[in-house]
């Protein structure tokens, strides 16, 4: 399946796009997504752990299952406020 992944802050700079498409097997998990992205974009190396993943605008854990209709996003460490 093809999954759309939004990329924010420096994740955008790493992938070069604010939304990428990632080919994944059905019922893939967040941990699978990390693996695929780390291989595809070596610049994630050493920084992937600091990224949180959201599905449909909620933060999710490594075991969460992704479906092709989900809104998936990469959330680097945040720094809102002052």
């Amino acid at each position: 399946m093809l999954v759309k992944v939004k990329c924010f802050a420096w994740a955008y700079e790493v992938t070069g796009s604010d939304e990428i498409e990632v080919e994944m097997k059905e019922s893939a998990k967040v941990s699978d997504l990390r693996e695929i992205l780390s291989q595809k974009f070596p610049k994630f190396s050493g920084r992937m752990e600091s990224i949180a993943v959201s599905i449909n605008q909620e933060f999710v854990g490594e075991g969460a299952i992704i479906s092709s209709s989900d809104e998936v996003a990469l959330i680097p460490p945040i720094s809102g406020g002052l």
Partner: protein
Amino acid sequence: MICKIVDSPIDITEWMNIFESKSLGALCSFTGIVRSESRGQKVTHLEYHTYKEMAEKKMLQTVSEAKNKYKVSDLLIVHRVGTLQVGEIAVFILAASAHRDAAFKACRFSIDRIKQIVPIWKKEYGEEGAVWIEDCPVDITQDASS
């Protein structure tokens, strides 16, 4: 309860009187202003980026948590994104309550919570280039509404 992400300057005077005052008692506000120095470096300007739909959702979660935790009658959060100059307001929070303790705590809780769960990012531009500020890797175990 008002949560807003805006891309134009925040006019505090517009927001400061937003709540009907008759039964309020205590108002506590927090204003976050872009500083001219950060981490020992001179700042020329900042860029705030956001995942807007999720940020608004997480700001609503923040005010709802604050309302559950403290006896506040009303709460406002306005966060600006885009390019901000030194001295401009990035965030404004206003908590209203019958009693000062709740107003202070809800206001403080809100700014702290924003920094934990609201997807907004700050890129600082200074003499030595630009850098993403990474205050807080999101700890998903801390996200659950308590």
